[in-house]
């Protein structure tokens, strides 16, 4: 199978209130192209699910949204990505505050080898978000509350974050992301290492976070995409095939490739 010539993304790729806009984005690793001419919007306060077969470029694309790909030497990006209409690849943009505005939660929970408290306080400290110890305490408590972890850890804030269960660690990482008050949260398969109960808690959390944040989540679970997102974007071999409201994608997808993937028909 190869790239579809002259493809334009099917469905409703653009949003009336875009938070992030991707325009004609190409991504290369060395001379190998991983993303082909991707254009779509991520709307403010929406949860968008990015789905597609392994290797189709979901993580690559997600990492473009907060310039995480900059850390990969051979990775090169063309096209524009706008956050609130400003190009994040503009040379003037400083990536440190950018990554505070566009936070990321990874597949495997990766708490720092520090106390629960310090895991959360780390970001606010380096970004200078707290003027005093009291303020920092407040940020830590608020972030843990929002991540639904406060009650479980409030009596052991100074024990190591790595001593928590997998699901708790993932919520700790979400709390850490929230602590720097981001506008967008990117999640790359945040539940793939979690059991159904921990997964349900994270999904519940995603639903609550949507009030205040814009969320893009990469997932291999069709059910998860259907449960948490308002729109779903289907990637295939580096191309964005279709973006549509999630209920439509899972009942009447527009593109035959989307249909084939979500019904499990790829051999």
């Amino acid at each position, binding site marked *: 199978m190869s790239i579809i010539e002259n493809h334009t993304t099917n469905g409703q790729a653009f949003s009336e209130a875009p938070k992030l806009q991707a325009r004609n984005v190409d991504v290369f690793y060395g001379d190998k192209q991983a993303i082909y001419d991707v254009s779509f919007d991520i709307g403010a306060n929406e949860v968008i699910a990015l789905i597609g077969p392994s290797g189709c470029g979901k993580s690559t694309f997600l990492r473009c949204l907060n310039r995480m790909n900059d850390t990969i030497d051979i990775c090169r990006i063309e096209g524009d990505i706008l956050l609130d209409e400003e190009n994040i690849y503009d040379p003037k943009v400083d990536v440190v505050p950018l990554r505070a505005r566009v936070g990321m939660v990874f597949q495997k929970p990766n708490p720092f080898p520090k106390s629960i408290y310090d895991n959360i306080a780390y970001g606010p400290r380096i970004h200078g978000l707290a003027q005093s110890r009291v303020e920092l305490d407040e940020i830590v408590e608020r972030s843990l509350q929002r991540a639904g972890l406060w009650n479980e850890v409030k009596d052991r804030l100074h024990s190591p974050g790595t001593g928590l269960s997998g699901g708790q660690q993932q919520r700790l990482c979400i709390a850490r992301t929230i602590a720097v008050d981001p506008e967008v949260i990117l999640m790359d398969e945040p539940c793939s290492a979690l059991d159904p109960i921990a997964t349900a808690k994270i999904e519940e959390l995603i639903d609550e976070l949507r009030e205040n944040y814009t969320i893009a989540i990469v997932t291999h679970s069709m059910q998860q995409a259907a449960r948490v997102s308002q729109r779903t974007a289907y990637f295939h071999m580096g191309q964005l095939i279709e973006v549509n409201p999630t209920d439509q994608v899972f*009942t009447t997808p527009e593109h035959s490739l989307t249909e084939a993937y979500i019904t499990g*028909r790829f051999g």
Partner: protein
Amino acid sequence: MDMNFNQHISGQFNADLEAIRNHMMGMGGLVERQVSAAIEAICGGDTSGADDIIRREDEVDNMEVTIDHECTQILVRRQPAASDLRMVLAVSRVVRDLERIGDEACKIAIHTLEVADASNSQICQQSLRYMGAEVVKMIAGALDAFARADVEGAIEVVRNDKLVDKQYAAALRELITYMMEDPRSISQAINILWILRALERIGDHARNISEQVIYLVSGTDVRHTPLAEMEEQAQKDDSGNA
């Protein structure tokens, strides 16, 4: 595209979907025969068939339960999406209508036995014959359209339902005339009335089945959509695909 999208990665999933479809068709075949036999009994006057119909009613009910269970299993185990989801939902709705058609065939058989005991069983024979033939054609047409995912065929069934409704109204007028002219025919006429009513309901169920064909193919729920709008939509879909 050099891929085969007809088959799932999971062979068992293919087999499960194939099975509910086949079982539904099998049930459809049985129900169609029940209705044909009921019409044969009322028009042909051979009441021995009526007893068989009543006896086979259980078989129809069991099929509904079995197929519904199979659909539930697919939902639970496979979490089907898109056309697979629509197939499972459509099958589960269709078997409900088939079961109701079975019930109506049974009612016809029961009333046929009552009519046979009375004299003067000739009233409304033409309407019975006409409506009977029409609804059998509709059931067959709806199932056929399902098997072939044929939207035009499904719409044809919906059109025929309109004709059956008209014929039903005409037959009612005829019955009323009988009853007014000869009060002794009233109990007889009421039996016939129930049979006509059952045929009209069978037409409605065949229409429901056809609506599921449209849902299966295009994802549009046309359960409360007027015929003209359905035809328009089908034309649009058609030119969209061309």
